[in-house]
């Protein structure tokens, strides 16, 4: 053993990305390799830096909502939500009941849609192509629902300051129930494909273990944090909207490896479906938007508001000086910290593990680069 290891192997530098099938966008890893083993990783980001924050400084509050859509396009609804919530906190606004419930429905449906993208790409990154198409098949149902509500498949601009843009069409509720009825069986289907698949398990167990202390110190949030055993979910711990009225579980696991992160997300999909069901049952009639002036000027002040998005804590830090435009909007996405921690947990693993870790962290680049 030791004699073999003493023999010299040359290190070499390998670029993984920006154009690489499994970096989830345009991230670049500079890998120091020894054979197949990764000695060091340096993520290089910024390939999708679009200066969203600079753009926000020159837009009115209503114009910023579509910009936030592009901040994290897998869950555009929660970006809208995070920003609207921040501004509502600034202006101390009252939101109509119906709008609150519609927001919850949209957020949770969007969470499912985002997790389905994660499910597909994770399977794809591990070499199984078919689950990818299964995930996208169900995602189309959700996109249909969004489309009939706001006319867009990906960038919704639906949740506005003071409520939602418009009421849902009449077919929405029955269609949504139809989807929820089949959805649990679909998740069972996914689980049959991967959860107990021997190859999938050996590829993921004990790979990229993230201990809880480290996860908190590095600012990891969302499913990745819960997989490490920290029961931290802003929907419970710092309730926003009306999440405190719903009954749902917050799944946690113990090991903090890739497999746990997979399990957490699968369970979360079921929980989200549960929340949507409850919200549909309780959905009241009424206004969908509070009265907001055409020229909207929130009072001067600063607020950092955060919500639990499918990738973790999404924060919006807004400074208003009392004019129509904010002074500063800072967006914080969960992926930012999760990508940051990847070098810590990847050293000593192989390239294939890096791909698995990247997939299980569900990093999405616009959240990092903005």
């Amino acid at each position: 053993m030791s004699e073999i290891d003493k023999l010299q192997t040359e290190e070499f530098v390998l670029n993984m990305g920006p154009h690489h099938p499994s970096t989830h966008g345009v991230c670049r890893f500079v890998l120091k390799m020894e054979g197949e083993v990764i000695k060091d990783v340096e993520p290089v980001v910024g390939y999708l830096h679009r200066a969203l924050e600079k753009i926000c400084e020159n837009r009115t509050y209503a114009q910023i909502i579509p910009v936030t859509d592009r901040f994290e396009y897998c869950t555009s609804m929660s970006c809208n939500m995070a920003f609207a919530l921040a501004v509502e906190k600034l202006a101390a606004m009252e939101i109509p009941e119906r709008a609150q419930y519609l927001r919850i429905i949209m957020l949770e449906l969007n969470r499912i849609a985002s997790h389905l993208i994660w499910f597909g790409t994770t399977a794809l990154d591990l070499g199984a192509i078919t689950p990818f198409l299964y995930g996208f098949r169900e995602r189309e149902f959700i996109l249909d629902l969004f489309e009939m509500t706001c006319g867009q498949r990906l960038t919704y601009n639906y949740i506005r300051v003071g409520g939602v843009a418009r009421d849902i069409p009449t077919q929405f509720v029955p269609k949504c129930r139809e989807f929820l009825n089949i959805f649990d069986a679909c998740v069972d289907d996914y689980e049959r494909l991967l959860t107990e698949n021997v190859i999938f398990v050996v590829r993921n167990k004990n790979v990229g273990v993230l201990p809880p202390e480290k996860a908190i110190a590095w600012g990891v949030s969302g499913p990745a944090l819960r997989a490490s055993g920290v029961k931290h979910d802003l929907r419970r711990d710092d309730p926003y909207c009306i999440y405190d009225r719903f009954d749902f579980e917050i799944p946690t696991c113990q090991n903090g490896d890739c497999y746990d992160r997979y399990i957490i997300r699968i369970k979360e999909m079921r929980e989200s479906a549960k929340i949507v069901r409850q919200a549909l049952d309780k959905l009241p009639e009424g206004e969908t938007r509070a009265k907001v002036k055409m020229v909207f000027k929130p009072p001067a002040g600063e607020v950092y508001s955060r919500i639990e998005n499918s990738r973790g804590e999404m924060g919006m830090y807004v400074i208003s000086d009392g004019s129509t435009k904010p002074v500063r909007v800072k967006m914080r996405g969960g992926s930012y910290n999760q990508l940051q921690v990847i070098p810590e947990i990847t050293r000593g693993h192989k390239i294939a593990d890096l791909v698995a870790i990247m997939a299980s962290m569900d990093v999405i680049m616009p959240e990092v680069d903005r």
Partner: protein
Amino acid sequence: MAEYAAVLVFLLVGIGMVLFTFFLARLVRPANPYKEKNQNYECAEKPVGDSWIQFNNRFYIFALVFVVFDVEIVFLFPWAVAFGQLGLFALVEMVIFICILLVGLAYAWKKGVLKWV
């Protein structure tokens, strides 16, 4: 020996056919090389360093173990062909032989040679 001529013929015809398709493609395809195009692809970055390096030695050890086993298998084939005529003696002898082989494998296993890096 005449049967083996077929192997030669097949090799020649195979190479010939492939070269012929290459030639056909040469007639049809465009050719416009320039510096960037001929640069090595490394995920749209300029490659850092050369790839012809001293590669992981583990690989050569695998190759060695393979050679050991492959040579043993050369002995296995005549034994298998003549097994019908040889009977019990051959069977016992080969079991011993294989056991020795497996002891070798176990040794390599214990030494950690079978761990791919």
